């Protein structure tokens, strides 16, 4: 059936709905493009035939193929756009350097680096020294938060040069911005009392 491959691509993305990026399905995309090509060629020949021979009964099948072509186009565009949005979210989630396991699935490194550059130039243009808008995604309640260490992480340095030893089950009261990274990595846990 036509357009099945396209639906498969969409389903693939839907399966991983929590923002993870599955591997780029080059094969699927190529198959869809091939399908589109063959449909287009068939349509071309049919249109020529219909025009020259005046065979009006070919028109419905031309219309059908045309609809399939449009549908394939929409599906592919949606697939690529959704991946783009997910890659953009990665920048906000992980910062400008992506960890290795995330980068594995991406093939559009170029777009990512361009996005990074434009975001960075925007941030630099705000205020006197620039403002890092990727921090504090939600308005913070306090400057310092209490965190609990879930696993041994060794030594950790904060802005004024002091070093903290992160040992399992120790609790610390640290500046919020330093802890966010480690909270995302799962080393620290925010304690709300």
């Amino acid at each position, binding site marked *: 059936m036509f357009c099945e491959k396209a639906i498969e691509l969409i389903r693939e993305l839907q399966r991983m709905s929590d923002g993870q990026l599955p591997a780029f399905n080059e094969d699927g995309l190529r198959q869809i493009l091939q399908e589109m090509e063959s449909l287009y060629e068939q349509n071309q020949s049919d249109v020529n035939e219909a025009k020259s021979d005046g065979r009006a009964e070919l028109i419905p099948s031309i219309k059908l193929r045309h609809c399939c072509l449009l549908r394939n186009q929409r599906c592919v565009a949606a697939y690529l756009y959704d991946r783009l949005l997910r890659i953009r979210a990665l920048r906000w989630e992980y910062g400008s350097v992506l960890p290795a396991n995330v980068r594995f699935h991406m093939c559009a490194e170029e777009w990512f680096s361009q996005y990074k550059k434009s975001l960075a130039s925007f941030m630099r243009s705000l205020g006197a020294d620039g403002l890092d808008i990727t921090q504090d995604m939600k308005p913070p309640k*306090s*400057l*310092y938060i*209490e965190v*609990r260490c879930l696993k041994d992480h060794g030594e950790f340095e904060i802005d004024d040069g*002091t*070093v*903290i*030893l992160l*040992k*399992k*089950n*120790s*609790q*610390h*009261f*640290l*500046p919020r911005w330093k802890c966010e990274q480690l909270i995302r990595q799962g080393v620290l846990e925010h*304690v*709300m*009392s």
Partner: protein
Amino acid sequence: MFVTDIRKEFYEVVANQRVALLVASDIDALCACKILQSLFHCDQVQYTLVPVTGWQDLGTAFLEHKEQFRYFVLINCGANVDLLEMLQPDDDSVFFICDTHRPVDVVNVYNDSQIKLLIKQDDDLGVPSYDDIFRDEDDEEGGDSGNESDEGSEPSGKRRRFDEGAVERRIERQRAKREWEARRREILFDYEQYEYHGTSAAMMFFELAWVLTKDTKDMLWWAVIGLTDQWVHDKITHMKYVTDIATMQRHVSRHNHRNEDEENSLSIDCMRISFEYDLRLSLYQHWSLYESICNSSYTSCNFKLWTLNGQKKLQEFLADMGLPLKQVRQKFHSMDMSIKENLREVIEESSNKYGMKDIRIQTFGVHFGYKNRFLANDMVHACAALLESAEKDDGDNFINALDSLSRSNLDRLHSGIDLAKRKLIAVQQTVASCICTNLILSQGPFLYCYLMEGTPDVKLFSKPMALTLLCKYLLRAFVHSTRNKRCKLLPLIMAAPRDVEKGTVIVVGIPPESETSDKKNFFGRAFEKAAESTSSRTLHDHFDTSIIELKTEDRSKFLDALITLLS
């Protein structure tokens, strides 16, 4: 040295610094820690909190953190030992110690630079005066020996006359020195002989909060729990408990005063602390009344519930009060309102007839939300059960117990209450079996009981607080059940297996049970001496010196040494 103005000398010093908090594993320390943490949150003082369970832990934690921190706050640990010698810190490390363990080591008292004690000085401390213990090096000794060498090399007629005078003076000085040293040893021995506890650390920190006018009801509640912990675990005398309750009562009425004028000013979710003259039945509001009576040590010992007679008396008691068995055996919340209304007075009247004069005790209760009412007692039992839960390791237990003290972690508190119920039942059953099978033996100067490995719930009793609780209940039960007048005045030593693979037992000693006991425990020193004399392999790791770990094989010779030592 003792800190006189806790705000200036402690809080303002650490306010702009980073502090390491080393907290011992008992409820009072946890409460004190919570109070200090909220003060630090208020003022954004950066800190690191490390739980410690014994001296070794303290040493390790100090070594790990000494590079990064200059200020250390020790809660409920460190006062009763020479800290500087044990930890060997750098000269710029400062220790603030808030500890209930007494006697405070004399070096800690007289060190001016590095050790600051956050302890009230009017807590009858009895610290020996400086001159009695410390003495500067005698310059005259040096002069004398110089003279001596001169005399040795050139004895002449004239010098011989000076000789005799100098020799006499030297002999006199040496005799005085020996006398002084003997007196010093005696003074130190008297001072360090008995171990006891002082004012709760949580109350000290609450006072700090009050001086800073940053005290809240949460902090007040934690201070109350810290004080109640001292009473539940029998660390302070009844007089002291009553005095401290009066102090807390002043704070409670000050906090409640704001709401007296308007009727409905406070929302139901706000916290209300109230003074209660409530029953001495553990966890009775979260259990059924019957179970609570059976498993609280006061009632169970007075009725002697391990005997058939005792059971009958209990039934009589309930009948006397007019409480139907069906009501009494169901959950307290579901009892009829008509019964619950005057329950306390009814129980007090009837228990007077059965010889239980103090069934009611002064305490505090908290009330927040529609169904959350807790007495300070309940919180202490729940928290202690979480702190020593056998299922998880020490670090997790500490975190769980610390969390359960916050109002937002009610499910943890409820799980703690369940664990506490199981623990109380286990204690009761063990006490009953020990008394019925005569496991308590009189060894002369003390009573002794050993829990065999196969005893049910013995894992629960491999932890110090639980074992101490069992020990106290057992002694009380024994005193009520024995007819031997002499045995009633003896202290009790109890041993239970601690670690089966390593083959160690944990040994706990408690002072004799009496109405007016001053809770002073001499077993710390006794254990040390006995271990030395028999070279048994012991580990004096716990902050309470009367709790030690011992290798199972050395048990009998250790006991023999103790018997000879104490008789």
